[in-house]
């Protein structure tokens, strides 16, 4: 039933940048369901900042395709969530609006970059949330906050209206407290859109089934080895045993290209970012320029004060990787490595139906714990392979370490979300 609702959450974890206090909604499958949207997704008439000073006050004149679909389905869009600026981070600490706190332990980060969306769901402020995942930005905060998050196959959800950071890697995806919630939201936002030429006509209309009898699950050595906290690895191994008890069969496998995956990911995403973020110059949106200064001086000034440190660092790294003389050593080699990751997945998926492992190598960090950028980047090692290959991956809660949630990551074949969702559902139903 169409209607209206008041939204006034007691947002003690700083999940939102903007809330919409009075929301009207229409009829549809999500009629009246409270949905939070990451602040890098354009919402007509509602400020959209990407958690950056440079977009403070920016009011998009149009809706992203996913927003139109949500409105048509009756969803009540109640707010825009905090994030790492432009999606660049793993903790939601890189926000011009202050960090989001983890609802499970407010001394810890919620993960990132869709940390506000995960926290809003985990804290119960909303029923469902939309995030975006460039190198793990939906799955990491889902794991750290103890909720479910899906990064769809590249192309299955339109990116029209998503403010671009790294186009070849990112996808918009659903987050919820249950697998059914993720599945319901995914069925609304998936499908082809002529405004995104990379979107594909593969709509999702599936009801999760817990039958995984005979499912073949690949267990890659690399997901349980060096750099992964042993207690996290053990918790995920136990979850895999639960899947076995439900009828699945496990097969050891190996992703040798993991050795190159993180470097390939960071060279690719910083290169794309250096190009994408060139549009933020304060002319068409943003704070405006000084007309007295010359072009480069005016832009440098506005970008230095408008962008946070991590964004400037990534723009500089990307500029370096693409520079004449270095292109062959960095960007081109990164594309070679990316192909190796794709080839590894294609080979493994000839023998198995899905791949399982931890979502993150550790539990949620304490605030300020990861101050060195490279150390922060290294924590993305288990999530970036799916983005490099374009394959879908879901994180589902599978227990705790030190009272903090651990995520089980299930990676599927291209366009085979149905199977990883069924497996996540089987696990969720099997343990509850």
């Amino acid at each position: 039933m169409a209607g209206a609702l008041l939204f006034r959450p007691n947002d003690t974890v700083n999940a939102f940048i903007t809330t919409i206090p009075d929301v009207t909604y229409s009829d549809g499958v999500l009629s009246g369901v409270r949905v939070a949207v990451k602040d890098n997704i354009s919402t007509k008439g509602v400020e959209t900042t990407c958690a950056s000073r440079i977009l403070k006050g920016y009011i998009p004149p149009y809706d992203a395709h996913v927003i139109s679909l949500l409105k048509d389905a009756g969803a009540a869009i109640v707010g825009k969530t905090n994030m790492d600026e432009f999606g660049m981070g793993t903790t939601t600490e890189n926000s011009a609006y202050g960090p989001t706190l983890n609802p499970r332990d407010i001394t810890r980060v919620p993960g990132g970059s869709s940390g506000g969306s995960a926290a809003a769901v985990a804290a119960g402020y909303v029923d469902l949330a939309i995030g975006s995942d460039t190198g793990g930005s939906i799955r990491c905060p889902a794991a750290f906050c103890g909720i479910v998050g899906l990064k769809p196959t590249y192309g299955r959800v339109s990116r029209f209206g998503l403010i671009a950071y790294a186009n070849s890697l990112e996808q918009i995806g659903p987050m919820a407290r249950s697998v059914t919630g993720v599945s319901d939201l995914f069925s609304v936002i998936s499908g082809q859109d002529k405004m995104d030429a990379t979107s594909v006509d593969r709509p999702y209309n599936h009801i999760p089934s817990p039958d995984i009898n005979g499912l073949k699950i690949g267990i890659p050595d690399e997901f349980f080895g060096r750099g992964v906290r042993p207690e996290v690895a053990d918790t995920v191994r136990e979850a895999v045993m639960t899947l076995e008890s439900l009828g699945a069969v496990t097969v050891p496998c190996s992703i040798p290209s993991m050795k190159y995956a993180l470097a390939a990911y960071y060279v690719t995403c910083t290169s794309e970012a250096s190009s994408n973020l060139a549009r933020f110059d304060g002319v068409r949106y943003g704070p405006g320029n000084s007309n007295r200064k010359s072009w480069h001086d005016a832009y440098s000034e506005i970008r230095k004060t408008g962008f946070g440190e991590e964004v400037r660092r990534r723009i500089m790294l990307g500029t370096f990787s693409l520079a004449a003389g270095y292109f062959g050593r960095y960007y081109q080699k990164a594309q070679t490595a990316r192909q190796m990751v794709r080839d590894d997945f294609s080979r493994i998926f000839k023998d198995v139906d899905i791949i399982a492992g931890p979502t993150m190598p550790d539990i949620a960090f304490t605030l300020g714990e990861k101050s060195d950028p490279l150390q922060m980047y290294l924590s993305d090692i288990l999530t970036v392979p799916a983005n490099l290959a374009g394959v879908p991956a879901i994180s589902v809660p599978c227990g705790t370490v030190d009272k903090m949630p651990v995520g089980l990551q299930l990676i599927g074949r291209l366009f085979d979300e149905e199977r990883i969702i069924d497996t996540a559902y089987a696990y969720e139903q099997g343990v509850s």
Partner: protein
Amino acid sequence: MVTAEDIRKIAKLADVGIDESELSGFTKQCSGILEYFAILDTLDQDRPVTHERVNILREDEVKPSLSQEESLKNAGQTEKGFFKAPRVM
């Protein structure tokens, strides 16, 4: 791996500005990251990369789009229906 002078040049190329006080921090961090990226240099140069995607083209037809007023609404400065940008010369 990179010097403070390199970082100064890159910051200028990328129009992100840099303060003297930031130089040593950015230099140290970027050097560490670029050293990590060097693992890619051990890969063969000539390995083939396949692209699964095909280019999608459409007819060049006029479709409804934002009005001039909507397009200018978020600009810091406008003049006579145009965006106002810094001087080039």
